[in-house]
C-alpha cells in the first residue's frame, strides 16, 4: 500500500478504461452469456429458445460421451503431469550438479517452450505416422503394430507424448529455480553426516521441493486442460471414437461443429468452475509462499 498517492479522480479511470473495456466486452459479458445459455435450449432450426432450468446440466451427467470426456481429461492430465514433471526433475537435478556446463544444457533444454502446441502435435504426428513414421517402424521390429488412427491407446500415447514434450522445458526451469533456493548448507551437513546422493535427495531435496512440485502440478493440469487443444485438433481430432476427446475439445465440437449451444454452454460453465477452483488453489499457495 502506497503512502504517497496522486489525488486525481478522473485520471485513474482513463488509465483503467482500455483494460476494463476489453475485460467487460470480451470476458465478463461472454462468460455471463455462457451461464445464461446453459439454462436455455434452442430448437433444431434456431427459431425458438426456451428456458429449461438445469436440464442441460443433468443431461450432461447422463451422457456417456461427456462422462467419457471427463475420464479422458483426467487420464490425459495425470499422464502429462507425471511424464513431463518426472523428466524435468531428472534434468533439473542433473543440471544442479554441474557448474561449468549448466548454462549450455539449459539453453538446449528450454527452447521447446516456444513451440506452439499445434506444431508440437504435428511434429510427433509425423514421427508416429503409421506408414512412414520412424517410431512405428521401430515398434514393428519388436512386433507391435502401431496405428493411432485405429487404436485408442496409441492415439492417447501420441497426444500425451506431444503435450509432455512441450511442457518439459517449463517444468525444468521451475525445478531448477526451486533447487537453487535450497540452502547448500543443508545438503553439505547431510553429506558430512554420511548421507549419499540418493539419501540426500529423498530426505532433503525432494521434501524441500514440495512447494515447487505442488505449484507445477496445478500449472500442468491447467495446461493439459486448455493449452493442449491445438495438439488434439491438429493430430487426432478427438478420435478414434472418443478416445482423445478432452473436455475443451468437446465444448468446441458441440458448440461449433454440432451447434448444440445449450450443452456446450453448460460444459463451459462446468469448466469455468474447475478453472476458478484451480486458480484459487494456486493463489492460496502463493500467499503462503510469500508469507514464508
Amino acid at each position, binding site marked *: 500500500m502506497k503512502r504517497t498517492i496522486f489525488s486525481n479522480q478522473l485520471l485513474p479511470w482513463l488509465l483503467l478504461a482500455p483494460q476494463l473495456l*476489453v475485460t467487460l466486452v470480451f470476458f465478463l459479458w461472454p462468460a455471463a452469456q455462457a451461464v445464461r445459455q446453459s439454462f436455455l435450449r434452442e430448437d433444431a432450426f434456431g427459431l425458438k429458445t426456451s428456458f429449461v432450468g438445469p436440464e442441460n446440466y443433468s443431461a450432461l451427467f447422463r451422457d456417456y460421451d461427456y462422462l467419457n470426456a471427463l475420464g479422458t481429461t483426467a487420464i490425459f492430465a495425470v499422464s502429462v503431469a507425471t511424464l513431463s514433471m518426472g523428466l524435468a526433475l531428472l534434468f533439473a537435478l542433473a543440471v544442479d550438479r554441474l557448474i561449468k556446463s549448466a548454462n549450455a544444457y539449459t539453453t538446449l533444454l528450454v527452447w521447446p517452450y516456444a513451440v506452439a502446441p499445434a506444431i508440437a502435435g504435428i511434429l510427433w504426428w509425423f514421427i508416429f505416422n503409421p506408414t512412414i513414421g520412424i517410431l512405428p517402424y521401430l515398434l514393428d521390429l519388436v512386433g507391435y503394430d502401431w496405428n493411432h488412427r485405429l487404436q485408442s491407446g496409441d492415439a492417447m500415447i501420441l497426444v500425451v507424448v506431444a503435450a509432455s514434450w512441450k511442457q518439459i522445458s517449463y517444468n525444468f526451469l521451475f525445478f531448477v529455480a526451486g533447487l537453487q533456493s535450497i540452502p547448500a548448507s543443508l545438503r553439505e551437513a547431510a*553429506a558430512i553426516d554420511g548421507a549419499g546422493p540418493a539419501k540426500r535427495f529423498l530426505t532433503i531435496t525432494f521434501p524441500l521441493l514440495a512447494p515447487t512440485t505442488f505449484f507445477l502440478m496445478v500449472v500442468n493440469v491447467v495446461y493439459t486442460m486448455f493449452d493442449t487443444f491445438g495438439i488434439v485438433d491438429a493430430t487426432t481430432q478427438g478420435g478414434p471414437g472418443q478416445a482423445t476427446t478432452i473436455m475443451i475439445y468437446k465444448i468446441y465440437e458441440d458448440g461449433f461443429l454440432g451447434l448444440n449451444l445449450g450443452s456446450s454452454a453448460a460444459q463451459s460453465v462446468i*469448466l469455468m468452475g474447475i478453472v476458478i477452483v484451480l486458480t484459487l488453489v494456486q493463489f492460496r499457495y502463493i500467499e503462503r509462499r510469500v508469507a514464508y
Partner: protein
Amino acid sequence: MVEDRPWLNRLVHLVLIMGVLIVAFPVYIALIASTHAPTAFTSGVIPLMPGDQMWQNYAQMLGTGLSTAGAPPLSGMMFNSLIMALVIAIGKIVISITSAFAIVYFRFPFRQLAFWAIFVTLMLPVEVRIVPTFKVVADLGMLNSYAGLTIPLIASATATFLFRQVFLTIPDELTEAARIDGAGPMKFFRDILLPLSQTNIAALFVILFIYGWNQYLWPLLITTDAKYYTVVASIKRLAEAVDSVPQWNLVMAAVILAMLPPVLVVILMQRLFVKGLVETEK
C-alpha cells in the same frame, strides 16, 4: 555440488545429453524431412540424413504456398502472425502498465472492484468462453480483421499483477521527491516508472510475443479469409491435405518456419525469457 563423485558426474552428463537428444529429436526429423524431394517419402521409412531440396522447398512454401491445401504463401501468413504477436504483446503491456499505475498510485471509488474485474480474467481462458466470445466478435463485425485477431486477447491480469508488484517495490521517497519538484502523475509515470520497469517490460514482451505467435484456436475460428490466416493456425490445413498427396517435405518446411521466430526469441533472449516466465507466475 557437495562432493566429487566421478561416476555420478559422468552419469549426469549422460542424462543431460539424452535429454537434449529427446528434446531435439522431433525437430531434427522435421528439419531433415524438409530438405528432401517428395519422392523420399514413398519408400518405407522417413529419411534420417539431409537431402538437397532445402532451398526449393522453403522457397516454394514462402513464395507460392500449397494451393492444393488452400494454403496461401507462408510469407503472408507469417506476416499476419508477426502483426498478431506484436499487437498482443505491446497492447497487453500498455493497457496493463497503465492499469497497474491507476491501482497503485490513486485512491478512487470502486478501486477494489476494478482490481477484481481484472483478476477474474485470469479464470476465464478464451477456450472456456469460446462460443459466446465468438458471437460478440461477430456482432461487432470484427471477424476477418487484425482487430478481431488481437483485441479480444489483449486483457491481461498477469501483466497487471506483475507491474503492480514492481510499482509496490518502488520507494515512496521517489514519488514524494517528484511531487515536490512539481511533477504531475503522467510526468512521474513517464520519467520515473517507465524507466524503472524497463527490464520487466522487456521480459514480459518475450513471454507475450510467444503467447501471441502461438495462438491457435482463436485465429482458427475468426479467420475465414485467407488474407488473415496466421501460420500456426493454418498448420492443420496444410497437414490434412497431405494424407491424400504426400508432400511431407513441404509441410515440414512450414512447421520449421512456423516455430522459428519464437524459438529464436527464446534462444537469443534466454535471460529475459527465464526472468519473464518466473515473474509472470508469481
